């Protein structure tokens, strides 16, 4: 006589012992076979940047308190070693930030 087998229990056991398959090689081979994404058009990219820049300049010019800022500008200043060091330090930080942002892929 055939003994009845507990199919649900059997699948339960299988589920508990399901291995986590290492996906490094598999993922690499999938990624190699994906179609290349279209390169961004340099022309449309530049156009957008110029347009956004022009818009930004226009808006800033209309609301920027130019005369007040000009009045706040010092008419003379003294170049001290501390000031020079601060300017150099700031330049280094800005250069490092620019380099980092150009080398980083922000596409997730």
């Amino acid at each position, binding site marked *: 006589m055939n003994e009845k087998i507990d199919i649900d229990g059997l699948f339960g056991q*299988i*589920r508990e012992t399901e291995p986590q398959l290492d996906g490094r090689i598999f993922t690499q081979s999938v990624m190699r076979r*994906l179609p290349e994404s279209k390169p961004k058009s340099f022309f449309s990219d530049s156009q957008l940047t110029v347009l956004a820049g022009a818009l930004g300049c226009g808006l800033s010019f209309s609301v920027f308190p130019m005369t007040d800022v000009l009045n706040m500008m010092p008419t003379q200043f003294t170049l001290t070693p501390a000031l020079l060091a601060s300017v150099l330090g700031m330049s280094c930080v800005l250069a490092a930030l620019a380099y980092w942002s150009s080398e980083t892929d922000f596409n997730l």
Partner: protein
Amino acid sequence: MSELSDQMLIQSVVASKSHNAFASLVKRYQSGLRYSLRQITGGDEMLADDIAQETFIKAFKSITMFNGQSKFSSWLYRIAYNLFISHHRVARNRELPYGDDQPEHRVTTSEETDLQRDLARAMLKLPPQQRMALHLHLHKQLTHQEICTIMELPLGTAKTAINRGKKLLQEELSIWKSGAIS
């Protein structure tokens, strides 16, 4: 750092065809999908991985078609199931060594236990539709509705496939068990 949600990754793939975002999705779902395919191909790891690869490539190409109404995993399983059925048809027409009576075609690894191997062999005796329905219901514990969505079947047909599959598997394993005892 918290992991990005499927939705965010999918949006990134749709917007910029980001390979990095898609790689995260592949890493997230590859293990479950490959294991499921191993189960329904009777433990044929090479075939299962081939179908899994094709599934992810097809998913990448048609990700704009994913409407977010079902889970991303369900959508992947639907693609995988269609590819599996297509492969099964081609194999049957060409009479390739892949099929119901060719368990020796399988490639096994030490990751597989005896129980997994025996069940995979017994599953080969079932028609592909019943095999998939049974796997999704009993192993992945999906609801009948989810199974219908994945397999694009009416509810009644899905339930029948599960019940018939269970019965057939029961008979198959009983024969195997009594054979092993005698």
